[in-house]
């Protein structure tokens, strides 16, 4: 059991280093087991040094967006270890700035050649990069439905139109 965990740890850690370097444009990341002799007695930490930051920074001192990028790197690292035919991501880009949201969307797009990616998102940058678009709405009666004839323009409009429509109504 310990042997299996250590083998998986080594492989997921290798993936984590690669994905984190790619997602943070050159930063360094690494997984650390607190107790290598008996891993079941200690935890698993993510050590990260975003590009341009000091190596002394601790995970709890990182910003909301930097922590999310570390967690997403771990998710991709686990997926690489055990690939699945389809992936479902529900608003994983919530607290990312435009820069980082685009990096995540680009990585999903690149990986969509070998597996199916379904991503629930409100962010314009992710909607622009997707190959296909699905719109879900409710008509104020508590019943959800799919919006017919939906495409990239309508998806981006849905986010912005809300804003325009509000401006006119005020």
């Amino acid at each position, binding site marked *: 059991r310990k042997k299996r965990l250590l083998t*998986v740890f080594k492989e997921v850690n290798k993936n984590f280093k690669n994905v984190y370097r790619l997602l943070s444009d050159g930063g360094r990341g690494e997984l650390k087991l607190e107790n290598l002799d008996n891993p079941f007695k200690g935890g698993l930490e993510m050590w990260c040094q975003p590009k341009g930051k000091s190596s002394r920074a601790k995970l709890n001192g990182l910003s909301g967006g930097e922590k999310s990028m570390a967690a997403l790197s771990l998710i991709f690292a686990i997926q690489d270890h055990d690939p699945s035919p389809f992936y479902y991501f529900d608003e994983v880009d919530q607290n990312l700035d435009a820069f980082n949201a685009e990096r995540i969307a680009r990585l999903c797009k690149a990986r969509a050649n070998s597996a199916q990616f379904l991503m629930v998102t409100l962010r314009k940058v992710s909607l622009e990069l997707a190959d296909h678009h699905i719109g879900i709405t409710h008509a104020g009666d508590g019943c959800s439905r799919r919006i017919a004839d939906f495409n990239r323009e309508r998806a981006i409009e849905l986010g912005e139109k809300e804003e325009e429509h509000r401006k006119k109504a005020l």
Partner: protein
Amino acid sequence: MYLKRLEMENFKSFKGEVVVPYERGFTAITGPNGSGKSNCGDAIQFVLGYKSAKDVRASNVLDLLFNGGKNNKPAKYCKVTLVFDNPEDPDGSRRLKIDADEVHFTRAVRKTRSGSASSNYYLNGEPSSQRQFKLLLSSANARADGYNIVLQGMVTELATMTGISRRKVLEEVA
């Protein structure tokens, strides 16, 4: 192998029959707050076999039946079907070990007269079981409990959980 479509009938906020077709590649799903985007994810988990009720945000499986919304009657039964494309590889094998180009996984829940819930599983229309679903799906790596399904809020949870819980995540992968 990919997920071709999601067919829901009276599942959560989806009244009556609603079909959501999916494509290969990268698909973005969008819509206002509370419109039903995460409920589609819950429908997928409902069939694949969720680990805990927290994953579908319902304390009781009967909470998954359409509750009527503003002006309709609450439903007494709900059904969800996942339709997977399952082509034959050049070597004759298929990702889902069933000899069919399309595989339909269906789960239905009915509210009985006594108010409890009865759950039925169907594989391409034939009666089946949750155990058989899990065996077939995990051999194709389409499990509900891997990190191939990342529910809303799970990224922040993974970043802020204790080191011990994170090590347990790795154990499940092993």
